[in-house]
């Protein structure tokens, strides 16, 4: 291994800094992101198949949205808690 490479690896140790909680939050958004995509997509599908059920479907969508979103928000809150 050349000296330059060793130096660059050692330098990397000093330059990468920040809060690992942010990475956790980034990972935490993946699942809810997919979930909300499915949820809204299915809602649009449901409403276009049966427009008269739109009100009920929309209410259920918001309830589901709130539950799915919770995990991402836990990630967000914990990113601040754990420093």
């Amino acid at each position: 291994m050349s000296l330059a490479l060793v130096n660059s690896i050692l330098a990397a140790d000093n330059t990468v800094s920040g809060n690992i909680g942010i990475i956790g939050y980034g990972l935490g958004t993946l699942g809810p992101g997919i979930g909300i995509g499915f949820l809204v997509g299915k809602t649009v599908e449901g409403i276009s198949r049966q427009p008269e059920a739109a009100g009920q479907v929309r209410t259920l969508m918001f309830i589901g949205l709130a539950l799915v979103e919770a995990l991402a928000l836990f990630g967000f809150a914990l990113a601040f808690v754990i420093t």
Partner: protein
Amino acid sequence: MTAATLPLAREGFHAPTIEEFEWPSIVDLHVGGVDLSINRVVLQMFLVGLVVWALFFFAFRKPKLVPSGLQNVMEVLVDFIRNQIALEVIGRDGLRFVPYLATLFTFVFLGNLGGIIPGIFFPLTGRMALPAILAVCSLLLFVSVGISQQGFLTYFKNALFPPGMPKAIYILLTPIELISTFIVRPVTLAIRLLANMIAGHLILSVFFVATGYLLTSGNVSIVFGLGSLVFSVALIAFELFVAGLQAYVFTILSAVYIAGAMEPEH
């Protein structure tokens, strides 16, 4: 706060941190080791409480058959809570929870709205205490509704031991039901509101500070500063949407939990 961080921005960009949410106390007050000091957030809470009271009091003090002005606005709000939340989620039995749900919605919405009102620029619900106490209110309400509707033992039996399961599955199911119904529900209710408001306030702060920094720091950066200015205005509109949505979500989930306690799950 934004105004305090602006002078700093001239010496280099300082991203706002969670310290945005810390306020020094104005009146120190300690009662038996409990800190009851009054700071800006507490004053804002009193103000919002007063506004909620005033809105309902002056709208319905002398109700007219043909509503006008404030009564009109508040009737639209109460009508929305009654039809879209109470009747839709709970049913006919939900009508007696309309006062609680309407007050909850108005209080949370006005608390959230503080985040985008110039001169205040702080979401009341961005501090954990307020969402937490509101979530505890909803928890106590749905537990007491369950007890009064089904009886103490029946309610907890139905909540912790859902009928129609093989006996052995209760070893696994009962702890999950216990945690999810009585702990996760209020905790998520509170954290959902809190985290949305913290995120919204931080994003607004970042854009305001960045606008100030970019507009004053150089020649080319003014272009980006103007872009940041336009975007921060757009974000205020987005925060208005979030404030309404989170108040709606908080209210509708409270209604869902009440509806779940009214009748045993099948």
